[in-house]
């Protein structure tokens, strides 16, 4: 019985790990090809730490209702947008949102973190300081849909 429990736990853990972490190129590999910001635009980085807690929960991230990417453990991507008001949102069993403003030439960092939910985890978007985000980015993998060079 205990043997079977270990087996099930092992399979579950392996499944979580396999579905888990982002697999794109590391930040250092794409940093050179990240373009400079166009006039009238700001940049929003989305990042998620590589913790396996809640790793199976990987919802899409919407920015003002447009899907811009996915929240994946150990992943990051960015989008450039005109200055203005934005709502970043993730949906699992419930919607969690972050509202913020973006100025011209400004770079904002949005972290998504899993939290407990009723049935499945929730993914909470929140602002991260540039200092903390820039320290963490080198350890993350690029998961943007478009090439960083575009």
């Amino acid at each position, binding site marked *: 019985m205990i043997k079977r429990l270990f087996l099930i736990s092992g399979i579950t853990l392996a499944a979580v790990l396999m579905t888990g972490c982002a697999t794109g190129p590391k930040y250092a590999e794409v940093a050179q090809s990240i373009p400079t910001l166009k006039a009238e635009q700001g940049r929003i980085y989305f990042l998620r730490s590589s913790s396996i807690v809640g790793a199976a929960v990987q919802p899409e991230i919407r920015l003002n209702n447009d899907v811009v990417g996915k929240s994946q453990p150990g992943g990051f991507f960015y989008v450039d947008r005109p200055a203005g*008001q*934005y*709502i970043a949102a993730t949906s699992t069993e*419930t919607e*969690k*949102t*972050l*509202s*913020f*403003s973006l100025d011209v030439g400004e770079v904002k*960092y949005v972290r998504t973190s899993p*939290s*407990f*939910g*009723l049935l499945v985890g*929730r993914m*909470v*978007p*929140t*602002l*991260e*300081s*540039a*200092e903390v985000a820039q320290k963490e980015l080198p350890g993350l993998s690029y998961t943007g849909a478009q090439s960083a060079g575009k």
Partner: protein
Amino acid sequence: MKKKWLFLLAGTLVALSILAGCATPINAQRVEFTPYGKGAAVQQVRMLHTVDVMLDSRYRRQIQQNSLWRLRGVVPQGSVYSAENAVFTIEGRQVHEAYLVLSGTALVGFYLPGEFNFSPLSVPLSLTFESEQHD
């Protein structure tokens, strides 16, 4: 017997609510924001003490000693200051980027720049800070 079942049901509902993290949404209202003049001297305040802010949503925030806040404009409730080289958010059911709204030395609430809303504090909080000005 009936009472027992009612208690069980109530307990289950409370537990489910806690698990589901049923935070209350923050209280916010639309407000007219007048930005501080572009090109004008930078006006900042530096906090002299760390202050804990208990939001009505029961979330807690901290305004750190020595943190710098830059004047961004005014709303009818007071002057609006954003965190300099840092981020500041308030949280209820959702998360909102927030600027401090100061009336004199009192923190009276928060301006939410992503929504053009003002979220009042039910009890204003006295802050101790010094003003700085840079060209």
